[in-house]
């Protein structure tokens, strides 16, 4: 499942909604990205996160499909927020559900790596004096 939304989310609720559909899940690896207070040695006030929504859905679906081809997964969940995000807020959740832990670890890291590389989101980071568009290092 892929969700692209402005609002915050509750980890327990989002994960339980998926987990409730299966009784053969033994392992879940989840990654959460947060807005940090300091970046490029400057105090961060907030982020403005821009998205190309139609393409983000397509691109994240492709990445999910590739993960399903490479590992034994039962389900996946990706939530990516956009809009104004303050320091300490969640930006992204990637959850990979599987029977055994190695599949969930590897798939979660794979999805995060490709999301960072290809998913069309842009962070405009606002400091106290100026702002800057960020680029993920590859």
């Amino acid at each position: 499942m892929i969700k692209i939304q402005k609002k915050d989310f509750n980890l327990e609720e989002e994960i339980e909604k998926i987990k409730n559909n299966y009784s053969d899940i033994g392992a879940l690896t989840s990654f959460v990205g947060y807005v940090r207070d300091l970046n490029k040695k400057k105090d961060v006030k907030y982020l403005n996160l821009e998205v190309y929504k139609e393409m983000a859905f397509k691109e994240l679906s492709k990445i999910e499909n590739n993960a399903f081809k490479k590992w034994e997964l039962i389900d996946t969940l990706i939530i990516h927020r956009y809009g104004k995000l303050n320091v300490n807020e969640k930006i992204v959740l990637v959850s990979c559900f599987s029977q055994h832990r190695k599949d969930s670890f590897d798939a979660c890291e794979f999805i995060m790596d490709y999301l960072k590389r290809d998913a069309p989101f842009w962070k405009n980071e606002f400091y106290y004096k100026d702002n800057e568009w960020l680029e993920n290092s590859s």
Partner: protein
Amino acid sequence: MRIRYFAWIKDITNKDNETIDINHPKNLEELKEYLENIYPELKKHFLQDILRFAVNQEYVSENLNLKPIDEIAIFPPVSGG
């Protein structure tokens, strides 16, 4: 065809999208030339080869032929996650 701009590309074009209706560029290279004329500042970024292009929400790296119904997006490296 519809062109969409994201992140700091919008600061160069002063808009987030526009429609090119007639005499449309036949392929991506022609589109770049067309846009360089309207937005001279884009030229150096095209030359540096740092921007990314998507046609109908799919990345393209080759000189794809374009159709009038296509949606073309131009944007800098991404920074999600």
